[in-house]
């Protein structure tokens, strides 16, 4: 049995290298001397290393710190509010005794089958809610309440919170809201944490809302800054948000800077990954069971 596992181990190791190698190339490219990149190109073993790209980014720190602040703010707010709304929607729907429960569940569920698409959504948010170039534009459209998560959480409530517990608390005089806060939520910590993780990652990684609803660089999240720089490497110095360093005098290490800012964007999530990967894997399997 153990002898046979050699081949699977080799293949899996190769696949893992394939998954990780691009990240390593990215980091190395960000640490490669700009001239080296221009003349010899990207390499896993550059002849000349350099940290100029990072020095330049520190000079332009204002833009990046600001964008990071916006990402963190939107991620925290979106995750907290999102999880709250999802659980407050999922719990009543999990109650078999709730009148019209089935109809309400269908209203939630139907949004997974049919949607109006980008055009009406965009026109509504921009023309009636005036979300364009506000932080709400990053926070609200699309991401806040995901009906799929409502369904998963509802299934969890149905299967792991005994009706008897709720009924006896009610007999003891607890109101429905108190039951939800004091009994249901503590029992639902695993699912709340898992869904919170997925909502949080969705906000952290989101660039789509920024692409559509934000044109003012002051409100760019870190993903939007990244998105802009890939086509416009001058963005950091040209946007009037940056420091007053005279960038015309400094030759801009364009290629390495691009890679460096991508590294800075993924660093926090890569550092945090070992700590939450268990929940990440588990969350994906939950989705599979009920998906």
């Amino acid at each position, binding site marked *: 049995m153990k002898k046979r596992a050699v081949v699977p181990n080799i293949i899996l190791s190769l696949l893992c290298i394939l998954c*990780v190698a691009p990240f390593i190339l990215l980091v190395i490219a960000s640490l490669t001397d700009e001239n080296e990149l221009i003349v010899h*190109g990207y390499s896993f073993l550059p002849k000349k290393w350099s940290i100029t790209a990072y020095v330049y980014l520190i000079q332009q720190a204002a833009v990046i710190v600001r964008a990071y602040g916006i990402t963190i703010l939107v991620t925290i707010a979106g995750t907290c509010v999102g999880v709250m709304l999802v659980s407050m929607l999922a719990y009543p729907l999990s109650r078999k005794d709730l009148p019209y429960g089935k109809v309400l569940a269908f209203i939630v*569920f139907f949004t997974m089958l049919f949607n109006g698409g980008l*055009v009406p959504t965009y026109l509504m948010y921009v023309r009636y809610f005036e979300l364009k170039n506000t932080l709400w534009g990053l926070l609200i459209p699309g991401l806040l309440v995901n009906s799929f998560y409502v369904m998963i959480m509802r299934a969890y409530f149905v299967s792991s919170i005994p009706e008897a517990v709720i009924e006896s608390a009610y007999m003891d005089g607890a109101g429905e809201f108190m039951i939800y806060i004091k009994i249901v939520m503590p029992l639902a910590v695993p699912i709340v944490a898992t869904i919170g993780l997925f909502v949080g990652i969705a906000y952290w990684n989101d660039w789509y809302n920024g692409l559509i609803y934000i044109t003012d660089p002051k409100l760019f999240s870190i993903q939007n800054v990244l998105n802009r720089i890939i086509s416009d490497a001058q963005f950091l110095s040209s946007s009037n948000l940056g420091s007053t360093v005279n960038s015309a005098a400094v030759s801009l290490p364009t290629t390495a800077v691009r890679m460096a800012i991508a590294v800075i964007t993924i660093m926090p999530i890569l550092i945090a990954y070992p700590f939450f*990967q268990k929940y990440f894997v588990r969350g994906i399997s939950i989705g599979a069971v009920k998906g």
Partner: protein
Amino acid sequence: MADGKAVALKRKKRVKLKRYFMLYLMMVPGMVYLIINNYIPMFGLYLAFKNIDFRKGLWGSDWIGLKNFEFLFKSTDAFIITRNTILYNLAFIVINTFLAVMVAILLNEIVKVRRVKIYQSLLLLPYLISMVVVAYLVLAFLDNKGFINSAVITGLLKRKSGISWYSEAGYWSLIIIFVNAWKNIGYLCVIYYASIIGISVEYYEAAKLDGASMIQQIRFVTIPLIRPTIITMVLLSIGRMFYSDFGLFYQVPMDSGALYTATNVIDTYVYRALIKLSDIGMSSAAGVYQSVVGFVVVLCSNLAVRRIDKESALF
């Protein structure tokens, strides 16, 4: 007596109302969000039948019936985006399913739990990051002086010059398929692995007693037993046949115009028509086309899921 009964019944009803009122109240914020974010735009689909003129307002614009659709389907774009959307999805389904099942079977051969966890985490790494970052990773390989050009094509193969990847559409169907597999196989693999480890050891022991080889065990035990999961996952993807991952087709090719024949799908077409060209007529017509056909497809695929495995059906 009868009066007393009626009063008691009434009181019971009132208590019930009071009790459930709180539950309904809890649902209000979430429901309001879904109504705004999901239901109002559904009604907005009718914009596709109007000649939108902002001076007249969205509701006041002139009704033009199917004119927008006529324009859309007379253009070559309609054919290209439909073809690309469907063919890419088909390729993704076949290739990703095959690879993910293979990798899950390999994972199942690994005895050490710690090792399985490490493999899973690394395979999932691409799934964790945003498409913008993926675009940077791809750029590091495909830039004019990227790794492929400098190390492989001019370095290893000794060609005189590299390929300018971002202006040659010919390669992009393969690049897109590869990047999609790279990003999503970890996710699918976790799902199939979860299904495989649910298989009772007894089946394998019985197979071994009958002298089944490793390959035979995979073919006659593993695959048949995870077939419901495979079929469900495939049908769910078929349900999304008319939709695509916007980031994959917009960010990864860096929105390069030269690549549109290979990278334009319905989602990117709607976005470009709306945001870049401000052509509400065309974009909303394409949007309705996607919503309606997508709805029919998802209904049909779910009907199929139900017939195979009622538990896994969406409804």
